[in-house]
């Protein structure tokens, strides 16, 4: 059976942009190119795999004279994230990143960066948390900051890593938002795998991305301000409410940014959800990051067997696009949420995405059957056989034949 295999959002511009290059890059190198073209002023670095691929790529660009920025190697992640927080406050476009427990070591700085509304952009090379030591991807590292006021996006390809890093600055630095942004890239599958990536000419990025401007929040002797004084219970509710309002304004700013970026490059049409073969689907799998690659393979295998299955990739996790998720995904019979993470003791003992999806659908008049699949932990591959198993479970769920709505896939008994 011939199935039209087409990535709905992969449509290229009618003709290549003048001055555009196509390079074979890892996701990490693609981000480094984005930093170069975004004129990032300061990069603070501290090595941990897989994030360190970015810092190596940036260091090489600086050494080769391709990039001009302050490059500070900190003595640990806590200092690393403090450096960019302060740099951001004095008007420097800043980049930082980490992975796994390295990200956790920076947690205090991560929390205050969001509290201070400083639009630092960070790359989280997703990696399983220690212990045991493991390099493979799980999403629990980045997800730990989900309540703090960080914008959070997951990307799938090298191309999207480049695009998202540029867009991240646009959204984070927008005065309506002014929040830090974490761009998550799956360890190994994206951070260390090379894809063909189109790098636009600098004029395109310049046109898209205005200069970083904190306005009257700039920390400078000519603009005497005190940042982050001690406060008491009379003040914190209002300060938290300001963060809440900024996050509530973010979805519209994200939509605008994608619209503009799409006009300039022909890429990134969909800001929040990328659907694949969902038009006539009864069942749809949902996931974040590189899980979409085996996800689409699974969809095609199942379609070959005559099942109406699709895949939906969630691109932004914070702000969580609940309205769009419900509007676009409530039409299906069943959703199979693939969680490359765990949330021990959570409702249903499911993963984070599952819990968020269920919350998003609570008020919807149409609620598809939802089954959670804990899969791909520690970087384990998700195979076509796993896909068949997940589909059978999802069907059983739709038939009311399941005694649990959370299933660990591929776990050895």
């Amino acid at each position: 059976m011939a199935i039209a295999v087409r990535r709905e959002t992969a449509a290229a511009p009618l003709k290549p942009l003048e001055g555009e290059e196509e390079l074979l890059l890892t996701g990490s190198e693609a981000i480094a190119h984005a930093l170069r073209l975004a004129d990032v002023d300061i990069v603070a670095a501290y090595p941990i795999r897989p994030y360190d691929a970015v810092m190596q790529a940036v260091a090489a660009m600086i050494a080769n004279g391709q990039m001009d920025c302050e490059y500070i190697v900190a003595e640990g992640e806590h200092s690393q994230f403090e450096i960019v927080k302060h740099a951001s406050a004095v008007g420097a476009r800043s980049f930082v990143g980490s992975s796994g427990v390295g990200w956790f070591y920076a947690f205090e700085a991560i929390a205050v960066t969001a509290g201070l509304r400083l639009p630092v952009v960070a790359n989280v090379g997703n990696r399983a948390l220690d212990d045991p030591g493991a390099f493979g991807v799980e999403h629990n590292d980045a997800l730990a900051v989900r309540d703090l006021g960080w914008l959070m996006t997951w990307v799938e390809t090298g191309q999207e890593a480049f695009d998202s890093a540029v867009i991240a600055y646009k959204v984070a630095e927008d005065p309506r938002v002014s929040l830090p942004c974490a761009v998550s890239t799956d360890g190994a599958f994206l951070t260390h795998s090379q894809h063909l990536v189109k790098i636009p000419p600098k004029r395109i990025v310049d046109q898209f991305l205005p200069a970083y401007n904190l306005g009257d929040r700039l920390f400078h002797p000519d603009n005497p301000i005190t940042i982050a004084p001690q406060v008491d219970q009379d003040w914190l509710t209002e300060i938290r409410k300001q963060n809440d309002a900024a996050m509530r304004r973010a979805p519209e700013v994200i939509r605008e940014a994608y619209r503009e970026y799409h006009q300039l490059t022909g890429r990134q049409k969909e800001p929040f959800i990328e659907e694949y073969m969902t038009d006539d689907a009864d069942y749809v799998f949902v996931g974040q990051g590189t899980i979409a690659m085996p996800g689409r393979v699974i969809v095609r295998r199942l379609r070959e067997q005559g099942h109406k299955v699709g895949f939906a990739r969630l691109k932004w996790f914070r702000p969580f696009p609940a309205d769009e998720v419900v509007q676009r995904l409530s039409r299906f019979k069943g959703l199979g949420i693939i969680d490359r993470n765990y949330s021990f003791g959570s409702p249903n003992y499911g993963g984070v995405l599952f819990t968020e999806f269920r919350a998003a659908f609570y008020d919807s008049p149409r609620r598809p059957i939802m089954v959670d699949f804990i899969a791909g932990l520690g970087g384990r591959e998700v195979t076509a056989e796993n896909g068949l198993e997940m589909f059978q479970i999802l069907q059983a769920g739709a038939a009311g034949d399941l005694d649990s709505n959370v299933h660990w896939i591929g776990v050895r008994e």
Partner: protein
Amino acid sequence: MAVTTAASWSVEVVYRGIFQKRLANRISRGVVLGARKDGKVGTAFARYGDSPERNGIPSKNFAVVATDEVELEASLAKYEPENVDVSIVVDDTMCKGIESWAWYGIQPINKLVVPGGALVVTSDKEPDALLEHIKVKPYPYTLVVVPSPVHAGVFAPEGSASFAGLWVDNDDNTDFNCVAAVAKFAPQILTLESVLDIVRERTNESARVAAVQATYEQIKMRAVLPGEGSTVEYEEYTKPGWTQMREGIIVEAMKVGTRNPIYKKWSTRTRRPLVNFDTCIKCTQCWLQCPDECFEVTPEGTYEVVYEACIGCSVCAEVCPVPDCITMVNELSFENNDNLYPQYASDPDAYRELLTRHGIPLHPELIEKAKKTQPVHHQPAAVAGGED
């Protein structure tokens, strides 16, 4: 009167950190434990937002006493009562008002006292003398003055503001006497017998019990009528909403060379430095060493104190190399925070008289030498421009 008919009563203790932290804790606990002997229940707590580890900073402790657990519950899980039946002030210099958080400016010392309530002050001054500094209220209340345990001046340096000022843990019965003052004003909260029981249990000394009972007799109660007291204006404040506040947790800072018009630190002060401008040798030590950058340059190149910014730490008096050129004196001798150099400039003799009145030797033999010294700073550019 509200205090008699209530089923629960709130008491606050206003003290100076860090010196009086233990004293305040003992008083608020004493109120609860004393009332417990009278069959009541209660809770005692420190104001969570205070940082009483800073020298002299006005801070608060609270005690709430109720007839039963149900009545008490309405006072639990609170940071502080909205108003109090009795406010106990353990340093009389705080009668001029206090600011323990920068946001709200200086506030009256009797701000929380309810109609018919009491303001208890430890002081060897007469109630009327204290009342000159205490903000007027539109309703009647009682000013209760607890005298020093033995006699004035014993527990603090000569000329200091308060016998309790800079109290560390003299174990001089001030804690028991303050609890006894509550009993004297409002026996319905706790009785003198309960206070004396506590003294007996805690110290096992009959002399202590007798001393507290004797002080109880000397506690003065002065009915304050509406409109009696100081009419000094206090700052008003309103809490802005989240749409009015600056984003990014930002507040205005001062431009170099300017002083904060809102946050004035003087209520931390029990004593203030007086400068003898005649003998100042312009050596810059006070200007340099003051932790709060309180000193400004006068036209002669000597240094004057900006009293609104001075916390009374006495570092200037300690570093000044000229005998009696900077001397710490009782804060309650002064009505306001006006700089004193203009007084010296317009009427030097009257100013010298002020120094003499505070027992400060004028050292006329040092004046000639002082006059010959050259100014280091010139008004006002040196201060406004900064040094680096």
